[in-house]
């Protein structure tokens, strides 16, 4: 299935520590709404695009957000909306954004950086953002929209992964979906990376405890219809937990991105592949390399070869990467 990714400009109401968008807002103009709509229609007509991701910056800040969303729904695209959920804390915004758009076309993904307000707000640089985003998610869920709560795992939050899972279950109920992701260090300075990077060997045990909780909640309450781990290597956890790891197929990703340059044109990037792959030497002989989500290239470049383990059939994770 061909998919499309469209960033509606880089303007954002948050200034997340590890997001490059804040630095690009004043440098790059957004493509015109007409150009973006044309690109969407062209993608559907010529590339068979069936799924589109709307992102930013913060996509709901775009003045023509509803117009673009409505056109995607008219084209019967499955729409993934990457948003910080902040603007949804006002119900009138939810009504305005999604007026006349069938909910089955939309899936909202929002990142929460902690289960507590202060650490989350510290990451976003926006005081009160945790409360607004949580309320925003509750508002869209009350309207029947599907929601995935996402957390990008960092040194600042990996120790509290089980608490985060527990929080999401209690706050959003058993029908919320979740995804836990490895971090892409794209655009970050070395000192920034050092502050947030957590080795996979440290993340793994905490992630296992979080997944134990997920399985327990599933057994008792049929919680988390969809729960996935992405952008982390299989070898960071015991094979017992591998069923949670999701790897998006690297083929047939047709990508449009906007804005592409200072002229604000929509650029097509045919055949672009996700920069998340198996890079380690240990992966060469690993029996599950083909099915591994891999890691971000920037993470491999930062951590080096020591963070991966080779897995052989019938054996566990080897101690030596070879």
């Amino acid at each position, binding site marked *: 299935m061909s998919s499309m990714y469209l960033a509606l400009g880089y303007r954002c109401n948050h200034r997340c520590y590890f997001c490059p968008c804040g630095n690009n807002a004043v440098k790059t103009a957004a493509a015109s709404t007409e150009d973006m709509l044309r690109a969407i229609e062209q993608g559907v007509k010529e590339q068979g695009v069936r799924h589109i991701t709307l992102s930013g910056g913060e996509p709901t800040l775009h003045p023509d957000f509803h117009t673009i969303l409505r056109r995607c729904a008219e084209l019967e695209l499955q729409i993934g909306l990457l948003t910080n959920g902040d603007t949804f804390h006002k119900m009138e915004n939810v009504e305005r954004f999604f007026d006349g758009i069938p909910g089955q076309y939309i899936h909202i993904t929002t990142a929460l950086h902690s289960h507590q307000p202060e650490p989350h707000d510290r990451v976003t640089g926006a005081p009160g953002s945790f409360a607004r985003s949580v309320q925003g998610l509750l508002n869209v869920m009350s309207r029947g929209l599907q929601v995935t709560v996402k957390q990008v795992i960092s040194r600042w939050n990996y120790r509290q992964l089980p608490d985060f899972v527990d929080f999401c279950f209690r706050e959003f109920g058993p029908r919320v979906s979740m995804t836990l992701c490895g971090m892409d260090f794209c655009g970050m300075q070395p000192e920034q990376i050092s502050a947030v990077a957590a080795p996979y060997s440290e993340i793994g045990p905490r992630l296992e405890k979080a997944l134990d909780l997920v399985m327990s909640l599933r057994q008792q309450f049929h919680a988390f219809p969809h729960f996935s781990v992405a952008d982390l290597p299989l070898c960071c956890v015991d094979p017992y937990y591998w069923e949670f790891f999701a790897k998006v*197929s690297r083929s047939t990703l047709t990508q449009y991105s906007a804005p592409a340059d200072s002229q604000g044109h929509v650029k097509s990037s045919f055949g672009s592949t996700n920069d998340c792959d198996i890079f380690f030497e240990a992966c060469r002989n690993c029996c599950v390399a083909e099915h591994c989500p891999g890691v971000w290239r920037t993470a491999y470049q930062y951590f080096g070869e020591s963070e991966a383990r080779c897995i052989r059939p019938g054996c566990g994770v080897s101690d030596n990467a070879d």
Partner: protein
Amino acid sequence: MDKLQVFSKKLGSAMELSFATAGGTDHIVRSSWLNSGWSNYSDSWLNSGWNNYSYSWQNNGWNNYSSGWVNSGWSNYGSWSNGGWSNGK
């Protein structure tokens, strides 16, 4: 569907895995017998029986959280399940 056996330290035994692709995403399916043993989270003992996640037979055993005995019976996630006797909420 490919199959592979790997050793799980958590289970202390080998486990069989299958690999499937759906909706452009690869999934790993675990096919094994599970005895979850004691679950501190719900302060109960759980015997999950055979679990090929989302289509399996499950006997959840005694569940202190709801103060009841729960036998989920056959659970193809979202389909028939017999919750058994429960004093729970």
